[in-house]
């Protein structure tokens, strides 16, 4: 050790040296403490997940000790707050799936077209204006979209189809679709822009037009990113709450007809939370069972998206 160049241990008087060592030691300790604090902050996200799973599973376990799983999945009625209680989650699931289908039927085509247009066709100036604008559209609070669906879109739809009830899945789904467009468009566009330029140049060199290049070269190359944008859209639609609670009604209804009113899983949770159910009752536990269903569904979406991204990723 003593032969190492730059070893000053012999040079300064011993008092100065120990002060320096003490300073260095305290500095190392401070560094370690700060790193630990930052690490704990990063762990908060893990604790959040653990907390979500803990709360949902804990209350659901109590719920399923009252209600058999077969009834939960098989019953075709959802009347948890009545004396003659039925707990068929299918009823709420039908509302969720129908409204999501309407939303995706709007958001996926429009979002894809916008992404293709912005990435391959639009002049620079259009893109510079359109992207922030889409971002603003995605930032509007969902309760405002709910108001818009109930008091603006539904009357317009009733004008075309007078028998449409005031609460319906169609108008909620349409507005939800428009709300999701920015998410689908911006993620798909990022994926398309990440496709290397020389693929496009190769395509143009073969005499392809812009449209042909976009459809046959850019979209297939960006497929994994576009697919994960769709999946994000699905999980947004399934988890959306306020638009449905306001515009689709709170009446459980086993239907796949978007012209009818129906409650979704999320709308049911809102309905229960608005009333004052006693903490610990079966009615209180139903919202956790419903929430667990919702979480599993979105988790499945997230995992599917992750796998798609991994397995279809084209490496350039």
């Amino acid at each position, binding site marked *: 050790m003593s032969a190492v160049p730059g070893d000053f241990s012999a040079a300064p008087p011993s008092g100065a040296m120990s002060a320096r060592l003490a300073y260095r030691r305290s500095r190392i300790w401070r560094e370690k403490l700060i790193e630990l604090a930052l690490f704990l*902050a990063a762990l908060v996200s893990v604790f959040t997940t653990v907390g979500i799973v803990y*709360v949902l599973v804990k209350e659901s376990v109590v719920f399923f000790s009252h209600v058999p799983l077969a009834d939960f999945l098989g019953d075709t009625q959802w009347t948890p707050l009545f004396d003659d209680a039925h707990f068929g989650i299918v009823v709420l699931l039908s509302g969720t799936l129908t409204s999501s289908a309407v939303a995706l039927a709007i958001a996926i085509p429009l979002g894809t077209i916008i992404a293709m247009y912005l990435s391959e*066709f639009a002049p620079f100036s259009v893109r510079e204006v359109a992207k922030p604008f889409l971002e*603003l559209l995605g930032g509007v609070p969902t309760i405002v979209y709910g108001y818009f669906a109930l008091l603006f879109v539904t009357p317009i739809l009733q004008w075309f189809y007078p028998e449409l009830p005031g609460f319906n899945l169609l108008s909620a789904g349409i507005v939800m679709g428009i709300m999701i467009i920015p998410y689908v468009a911006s993620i798909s566009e990022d994926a398309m822009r990440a496709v290397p330029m020389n693929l496009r140049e190769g395509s143009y060199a073969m005499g392809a037009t812009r449209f042909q290049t976009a459809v046959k070269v850019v979209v297939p190359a960006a497929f994994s990113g576009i697919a994960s944008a769709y999946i994000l859209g699905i999980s947004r639609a399934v*988890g959306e709450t*306020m638009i449905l609670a306001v515009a689709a009604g709170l009446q459980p209804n086993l239907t796949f007809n978007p012209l009818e009113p129906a409650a979704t899983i999320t709308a049911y949770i809102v309905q229960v939370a608005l009333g004052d159910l006693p903490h610990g009752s079966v009615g209180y536990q139903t919202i956790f069972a419903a929430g667990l269903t919702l*979480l599993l569904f979105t988790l499945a979406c997230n995992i599917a998206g992750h796998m798609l991204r991994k397995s279809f990723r084209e490496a350039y």
Partner: protein
Amino acid sequence: MAYAKGIEQVRVLIAQHKRWDRIFGVCGLLALMVGVLTFAALFVDMAIDGIPRLSVDFFFNFPSRRPAQAGILSAWVGSCLVMLVTAFFAVPLGVAAGLYLEEYAPRNWITDLIEINITNLAGVPSIVYGLLALGLFVYQFGLGQSILAAGLTLALLILPIVIVATRESIRAIPQGIREGAYALGGTQWQVCRDHIIPYSSAGILTGIIIGMARAIGETAPLITIGALTFIAFLPGAPLKAEPPFVSLDWVMSPFTAMPIQMFNWTSRPEAAFHQNAAAAGFVLVLMTLAMNGLAIWLRYRLRKNIKW
């Protein structure tokens, strides 16, 4: 002759294909217009219904059974206080977590776990956060339906947004800056405190503003934890005349917030309340637009001014 005919055919083919280009260009613009027109319709509809109700009284009245006298005083005060708590928790935690993941984290399974978690949490529906808060904060920790419980919930909700923004703007700082600082003998924390955080602060601020704009419009988690819809009093004042001058009583107070007030008015059958809802919604949209606009402008300026 046959040669010239062949050229003619090719020209026709090219013209056909180019037509598709133009058709798609128009389709793209139309699709964009759907978004633009919806937004315009939403904004104008709210403005027409809501602006006649906007007056000084509307901002300084409590909610009421009579629609003409109802106001949003408790709602906007509640929203501001909840945002204060949210920022207090989300900003330090989010920045610290982002800093750790970019500058400190070793490549191991714990880091992977944290990263997967953050990605997943960004996709969890907001109402599930509400259920978490209801089970954990309201009952397990005994915080009740308070401003503190609401603020914590929204802080967890926007944490992924703040973390991702922090990481992105830290990643944009060139490696040479870190190396320069280390070469002068700086410790890791000194490098972070004096260089990394200041240089990334504008990007972090953008993320924080976007996160807060999201939080201010969130309705579902607040309803789930049981925020009241009818509150005709204000939480205790945070400042007092006698020592110790500051009081934290307000964090445990029950509350209402702008989106909840709007939901309440929207779900009533009377048209007069719908006007109030429109007015509250108009204020809410203006608030989120202003915040998002500020964030976009900040980012634009950042991209223009900073050239490493």
